[in-house]
């Protein structure tokens, strides 16, 4: 695709199938403490 470059991303629809293990970090424990932002959390699912 000459005019479109697609970045490699995790397919969210796919992740619905085996997601939700809950092992990832709770957002507020990291640095913000005053706002919610989950997108920068790393996935820690071993069976992904």
């Amino acid at each position, binding site marked *: 695709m000459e005019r479109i470059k697609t970045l490699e991303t995790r397919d969210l629809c796919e*992740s619905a199938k085996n997601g939700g293990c809950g092992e990832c970090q709770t957002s507020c424990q990291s640095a913000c403490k005053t706002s*919610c932002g989950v997108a920068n959390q790393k996935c820690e699912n071993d069976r992904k």
Partner: protein
Amino acid sequence: MVHQYRLNGYNIVMDTCSGAVHVVDDVAYDIIALFEGTPEEEIVSSMVSKYAARPDVTEEEVRACIGDVRALRDQGKLFSPDTFAEKAGTLKERSGDVVKALCLHVAHTCNLNCAYCFASQGRYRGERALMSFEVGRQALDFLVAHSGSRRNLEVDFFGGEPLMNFAVVKQLVAYAREKEKTCGKRFRFTLTTNGVLIDDEVIDFANRECHNVVLSLDGRKEIHDALRVDYQGRGSYDVIVPKFKRLVEKRGGRNYYMRGTFTHRNPDFTKDVFHMADLGFTELSMEPVVCAPEDSAALTEEDIETVKEQYEILAVEMLKRRREGRPITFYHYMLDLKNGPCVYKRLSGCGSGTEYMAVTPWGDLYPCHQFVGEEKYRMGDVWHGVTNTALREEFRACNAYAREECRDCWARMYCSGGCAANAYHATGSIRGVYKAGCELFKKRIECAVMMQAAEADEG
């Protein structure tokens, strides 16, 4: 739905429900904007006419690009349908009543008297107090008992200033390490400190035991010292900066955040971020102040516009520093598009009031640290667990689709509907929408995604 924007020379198209991100040229950008709801022939004539001066934009080329857009749609990477709205509630229910993270308020007191502190100098509008070892131990037992199959448990030593109760912090970590041997869990500790009491013993302890340390510094000396003062009104910058440098150096420069708060005094907060970088710190976080709108520290509507510009300045400067081989990390720009959170996490949010709770020095449970002191948000205690189950259900119902305004917002899979505490403080309801917060959040995500595009482009 898709979200299109231009930033720093990049045309970016984000597909909300699949999470796909596309970097496109002007022609594709326009075609995508027209694709839904405009007949193909109209798109072709419109593009050929608009780009008449460009020899590369022929009818054939435009049709090829439309074909590419259609292919991406068919692959589920553009205009992907929203299949999550119905699942939002049930996906979050999957975690049951599991608790996996606690914010331990080991000290409701502080050795600084920062004017903007959301915790009212650590007292949370209540009495000064230190958590006893017995209460802390019960909190850890409560966490393990309610953590179900979760292996990674998170405990944040928070306050006030947690180092004012360092002896108990050490006892609790020792207790948890013993408990790890038999319970099959792994504790990850975070210490959030203003730095005043850091010494070699604290440094060795934090670097041995804490997965993460959050160090409070507001940036430039004049900015930091204006609000982060002791009870004699003296600024704390000169006391803490050398201590932070020593801690970070001995830590190998990893697993820490230098975290600042910006207020009406410094909406030009990137100067403070760059000041931290100039001090040699590379893992940085800077947050807008949380306070009542009538507070003199509160950001005004005009400030919000400045802050949005500042986020762009920060992103561009970070890319420059990366090219120059002296990168810095900004917490809100850390996006891992490939290995980031699954849709469950994106729908559910931070887990406040369900997976995550705060514990007061007396052992009371609150949905998170920002609700401590609000009596009606007391959930129970560490001996009897959550007794206000209706409140837990209210928090469980908070997700990316809980608010009408979020249902057609492109950013909902990045913020999960936003911070319940911010919503409560801005609107009186955890199901409200903190609009200024949304604006800043969306700008941050646009900047972070642009940086991913630039890094992919630059290699």
